[in-house]
């Protein structure tokens, strides 16, 4: 895995010196801030009716806004990773260095994951605010953020693969968004399909809404670990094979 750290550093530097990163962070915090404030406003004005769930659960678990945030973050974060290098030709130079394809893929992926985690980090302040106004179960908070990281890890992996299959950032963006949209649509089946049917089981298995509801309630389910684990590993493996193929047959 030699070469992993230099590539990771370079990717992080490239990401954080571009205006795109800060625009993303600003818009992300604005959307999340408004969402959080709406929930706080709702809970503080109707304590008896919303008491059966915690504000934290409402923020992370009971909303489709999480999808919006994922759409906002994941495609822009990953679209550039390989597509831009292939378009500009810098990938050739990278592939001639004594760095394994796995190291290249993992370094770029880790950089995207770090950037994703960096964007979520300020939302920890929301937890501090909630602790000032009521009880917050920090173990549930931990499970929730682990879930956010796990879901992001899986979607970023898909985005990385999409970036590797095309030279166009825009197409990479669209491909990632399309896969996420497909998962979203299947997930909606949770509410449409008949309870107990195979379709319902599949929909629940891929529904981010259901998974975040569980995690924000403090339930960690092995099925979700397997789902996001495989959803992360398979695109990473496919990307590694693709990068390896470029080395021997050209990009």
């Amino acid at each position, binding site marked *: 895995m030699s070469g992993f750290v230099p590539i990771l550093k370079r990717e992080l530097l490239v990401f954080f*010196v571009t*205006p795109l990163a*800060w625009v993303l*962070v*600003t818009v992300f*915090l*604005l959307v999340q*801030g*408004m969402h959080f*404030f709406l929930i*706080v*406003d709702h809970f*503080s004005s109707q*304590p*008896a009716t*919303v*008491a*059966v*769930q*915690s*504000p934290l659960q*409402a923020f992370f678990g*009971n909303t489709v806004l999480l999808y919006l945030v994922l759409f906002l973050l994941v495609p822009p974060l990953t679209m550039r990773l390989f597509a831009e290098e292939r378009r500009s030709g810098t990938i050739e130079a990278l592939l001639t260095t004594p760095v394994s394809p796995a190291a290249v893929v993992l370094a770029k992926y880790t950089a995207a994951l770090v950037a994703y985690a960096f964007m979520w980090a*300020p939302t920890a302040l*929301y937890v501090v*605010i*909630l602790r000032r*106004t*009521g*009880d917050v*179960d*920090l*173990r*549930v908070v*931990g*499970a929730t953020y682990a879930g956010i990281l796990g879901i992001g890890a899986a979607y970023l992996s898909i985005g990385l693969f999409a970036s590797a299959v095309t030279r166009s950032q825009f197409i990479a963006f669209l491909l990632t968004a399309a896969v996420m949209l497909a998962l979203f649509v299947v997930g909606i089946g949770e*509410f449409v399909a008949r309870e*107990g049917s195979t379709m319902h*089981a599949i929909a629940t*298995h891929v529904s981010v809404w259901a998974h975040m*509801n*569980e995690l924000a*309630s*403090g*339930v*960690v*389910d*092995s*099925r979700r670990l397997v*789902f996001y684990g*495989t959803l992360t*590993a*398979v695109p990473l*493996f*496919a990307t590694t*094979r693709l990068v*390896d*193929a470029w080395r*021997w*047959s050209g990009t």
Partner: protein
Amino acid sequence: MSAWKTSSLVGVAAAIVAAILLNVLAERRFTRWDATLAKRWTLSVATRDTVRSLPEPATIWVLLAPGDPLGQGIRQLLTAYEAESQRIVVRYIDPDRDPLGFEDARRRFGIEAGRTADGRVVMDAAIVVTMGDRRWFITTQDLLEVSEEDKGRIRRHEEQALTHALRSVQGGEKVQVCFTEGHGELSIEDGSDLGAGHLRDILEKDNYAPRRVDLGHGADPLASCGVVVVAGPRSPFSPTEDERLAAWLTKGGSVLYAASPVRAPGKSTFGSDGLAASLAAFGIFADDAMVVERDPERILESEGVGVLAEARPHGITAGLVGEREKTLVPRIRVKAARPLSRVPGDVVAADLVVTGARAFAIRDVRPRPEAATGDRDGPFSIALASERPRVSPSVAHGPRLVALGSTGFLSHAAWQEPLADRGAALVTENALSWLTSRPRVVDIPERAAVPAGMRLTEASRREVRDYVVFYMPAAALLLGLAVAFRRRSTEGRSPAPR
């Protein structure tokens, strides 16, 4: 295509297939961990024992929408129940999205449902647990309790309610509520506004078994009764019947007595109902008179026979005492009430509902509506509760009696009032709960209470808004601008010599 590319494609395809198989296996055999500090989703030993020892399949019908916050918690908990035994079958019916399924369940279980102003379906049972032909209803009030006394904290009883229901449908006897008959009482078979048919439905939904009983027949007609309801007799009980009831009460029975003033046949005065001995054992006397209200703000009907009464603090009247301006406290509207009073003795009855101070009680209907010589002045108690010492240390409470001075407390009309005027119905429901006073399921530990909602002042709310909507995004923007300026200022410069 080169062999190398083919092997790569095969490798990726194999990885996808392996991933799908792994997910299928994970779906069939999974583990859930409870990350909450209070172990909210971990079933107690008592519940696990109950679920594992179910003699036959139990079906749990959840009539809550998937988006309902209460339903989400129930769903998580029921997954844990299902994991303990294959004899637990859970059926979810979304009242909003599956109207046919909901209508079927509504008819099957006799559930009453209505729609709120925002279109949501609300009903008088959130969960129904069935085993064979036995069923047990769980309401949202059974699942959680929000207490203003406990600084607005919420206490969850979901596990207690579900486990209690599972135990109850395994053949546990329901408390029998016996309605006396033969004296012109309200009939539980009468579904009209003036009947007690609606009360019977409510009792069944509250997991009681209502039935009729004739005190004049059989050796021990009250043997299996948990509570006896005397619902507005229009002719007097015989001394033998009164003695039977009093004897049953001294053995530990409880009675809900509701009686409006009834004119004696052929007279202008009010007659007795013949239950003086039973009432006297609880320090209560029902006067053969009728309350007339003079206060214009408390008069509901012409000539003052409908009164607006006030609740006094007691377990039965919780939620009915307080200032209406601050919270929604339902008003107690009562028609044709008779005054009740305390009689000296070893038991002191507690006031539940009283009239205004300007009310008076008439004994003769002729010189109306002014008070005549011999009439009493208010305020009058029109609902009293009393409890005698326990007859044995093993029972939860002693014999109890709630006396209501009007049959209006029990009639269908009381439940048809808008919520703001449904105080009389709530008194009756609470009185029945107090009389039966089911003990909580003690072998399932109570969960810690959690704060209900958020307590924020207007200033704090604004502060939160400023921080999360303005300051945090602005800080990110400023940081980005700083990076951009720094980058621009260093662009084109050669690196500093080392």
